């Protein structure tokens, strides 16, 4: 098991990607803040990045990295809760709509998911504010609520008001992402259910639940992980919309303000950081592949892979 070449290859391609992203960010910097870009050449800029210096915000006059790290916990919590909502709902709903496609509730779920895909988030978010905050007065309309400091990490997940505040933005983001996963799981399951091994299992009299969970769902995990890594960018983008809409004090709203103020250095630093995060996330996905299907482990030599359907 020699995974060194694989690892070096990954590191190499990763650093080239980041390098390209950094060059693009420098180009954007020169568009937004020409004076700033004129003061520093591209190789100086890249050199600073390599040394972990992400420059100084033009507006705040503080290091960009500090600014972004300061706002990161809020965004992170929003992303985590959103992902949890998506994961906890997509699995059972996907399973249910695949098993009982003709039932009324299943049809309603599918229709609703179509709505979720089609409606833009700024609309659903605004409607949610109107309904739950303005009309019904159940949930607060903006902000993060009460914060508890866990060391240097400000968390909103340990207070009632924190949870009240996170419900709407997290639900709004998950409403757009949930349908994708739900439909993916459903499609995978329906496909697997008609495959030979499952038919064989049915013929052997294995209980339906065991078939659904063990043969069906397990096969749906890989595409789901792929989808998750692909949707990471979408998640970041939607989080930005949600942060603006609900005045969530996170990285996304910091970035939006940066755009409005024409804060070139901050925008450039954010882009580089997000591309690093992208890369890390994709690498994690590759590792996860390995856990669920040893054939695809990045540390393994490629061996011919025999699919489920091949006899």
């Amino acid at each position: 098991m020699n995974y060194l070449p694989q690892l070096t290859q990954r590191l190499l391609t990763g650093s080239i990607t980041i390098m390209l992203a950094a060059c693009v960010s420098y180009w954007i910097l020169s568009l937004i803040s020409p004076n700033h870009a004129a003061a520093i050449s591209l190789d100086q800029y890249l050199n600073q990045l390599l040394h972990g210096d992400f420059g100084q915000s033009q507006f705040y006059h503080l290091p960009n990295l500090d600014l972004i790290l300061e706002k990161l916990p809020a965004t992170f919590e929003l992303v985590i809760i959103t992902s949890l909502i998506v994961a906890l709902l997509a699995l059972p709903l996907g399973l249910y709509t695949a098993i009982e496609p003709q039932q009324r509730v299943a049809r309603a779920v599918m229709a609703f998911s179509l709505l979720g895909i089609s409606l833009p988030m700024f609309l659903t978010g605004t409607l949610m504010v109107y309904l739950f905050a303005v009309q019904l007065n159940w949930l607060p309309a903006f902000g993060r609520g009460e914060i508890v400091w866990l060391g240097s990490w400000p968390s909103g997940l340990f207070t009632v008001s924190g949870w009240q505040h996170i419900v709407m933005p997290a639900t709004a983001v998950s409403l757009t992402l949930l349908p994708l996963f739900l439909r993916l799981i459903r499609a995978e399951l329906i496909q697997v259910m008609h495959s030979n091994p499952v038919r064989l299992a049915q013929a052997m009299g294995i209980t339906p639940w065991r078939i659904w969970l063990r043969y069906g769902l397990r096969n749906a995990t890989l595409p789901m992980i792929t989808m998750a890594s692909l949707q990471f960018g979408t998640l970041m983008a939607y989080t930005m919309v949600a942060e603006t809409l609900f005045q969530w004090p996170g990285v996304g709203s910091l970035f939006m303000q940066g755009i409005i103020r024409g804060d070139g250095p901050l925008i450039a630093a954010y882009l580089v950081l997000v591309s690093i995060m992208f890369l890390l996330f994709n690498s994690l996905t590759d590792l996860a592949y390995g856990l669920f299907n040893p054939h695809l482990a990045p540390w393994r030599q490629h061996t011919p892979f025999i699919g489920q359907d091949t006899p």
Partner: protein
Amino acid sequence: MNPIAHQKWLSTLLLALSCLMSGLVNANSLRIAYDADPVSLDPYEQLSGGSMQQAHLLYDPLLRWTTNHQLEGRLAPSWQRLDNFTVRFNLRHGVKFVGGNPLTALDVKWSLQRAKTSPDFKAIFQPISHARVIDTHTVDLITEQPYALLENLATQLFVMDSLFYQGFDEQNKAKDAIEKHGHSYASEHASGTGPFIVTKRQQGIEVQLKRQPNYWDHASMGNVSLINLTPIHDNATRSAALLAGDLDLIAPVAPIDHYRIKKQAGMHLFTRDGARFINIQMNQVTRPELRDLRVRQAIIYAINNKGIASKIMRGFATPAGQQSPPGYLGHLPKLQPRFDLDLAKKLMSQAGYNKGFRLTMIAPNNRYVNDAKIAQAVVIMLAKINIEVDLVTMPKAQYWQKYDQGGADLMMLGWHSDTEDSANFSEFLAMCRNAESGYGRYNGGHYCNPEVDRLVSASAKQTNSLKRAQMLQQVEQILYQDAAFVPLHWQHLAWGSRSGIDIGQVLTVGNIPYLADLVIDQP
């Protein structure tokens, strides 16, 4: 622990909690959201409406404008003009700064000197040459030239604690340093005599203020003891948060939300005439066509600014025919908005341009109410006299840079008089551009008429207000005839609140709310 004891313990806790909660409610707290929070606690770091509003909470000026635009003594309850150069201010006795130091004439002198070094404020305080300390509680402000608006400037002279800002901070920088967005000591530590003190501040997230228990103004009826300020950039979110009951007071309110707030039970919308003058500068340097008086007049006649005020601004603006809003010294009632399409076409053909020409135009898209929409309407209106306009709108961050470069033929500009006086408009928008003196700094049209310069300069030295008014009105008359710029409207002010709060009691025409004097009812 047996269940009963457990229950007792719980009920005690609940009781304690409810006492605490009711204590908080009784404390008359006010939750406010505005569009952006000031970058600094230092009143002299950044010249902006938000920073002036904040300065009135943390500091006191020598004088201030009342809600009906009269001067009122604050730290200086009385003042007299000694001669054309000098005004004597008698300071209030027994006033203390937050840090405990007593207020003296030395603080006034020091604050003035400091303000005169501020990049944003030095032009405003430029007419005052120095302060002369007479005794502990008497100070003279002295100008080099006779200057009519010395009292107006005293409304912007916030007195800071000179002893508190002595010495150096941990970074070895002078505590009184003014550095724009430089996180200086003064930008993060406030010691003023004002009605509120900062208890918590997270820039961009929230600011909490507590009423100063020993505030000197015992005559104030105000009952607000806690203020929580949150910046919410998005107009719709700000309005929704008010409607949802998460806030008590918001500003600004976008015109599109006015009706919604007005009709909602338990909500209150306050609007009043404002003094921010929105206009379009016609660049005579980039375009020879715009040097022709008839072309400039044609453009003014072609733009239906009454229509803009009623349709785009939804009545939330007063259409303007001049710079000075009603109530200002220079306002001349007969200068009404002009709109006459036939006359505009005639003027164009007289000038030999009946085939028209192309112009470029820039406007901000997040600075003034409906700025981009107004610019789009102007494009359509000018097409009717065959002027094709290429419009580019951009965020204010990029806009001012472009404006300073004179980057287009037509440029939108809004101006609020720093001194609440007519002359300030002309000094910045209509006088000949002069890099040395700073006059005509925002005169994007490069309009230049020596007679206007002469009258405006003379008006500054004229201390007789009747004669001064005549001069300033004459200036408006000349600018009107010369078609120096396209006057659009004066933008109104809007605040939304829950009922029980009437911000109108304490709001000045300059959009500064004296929150310390605000009397609110429990919801």
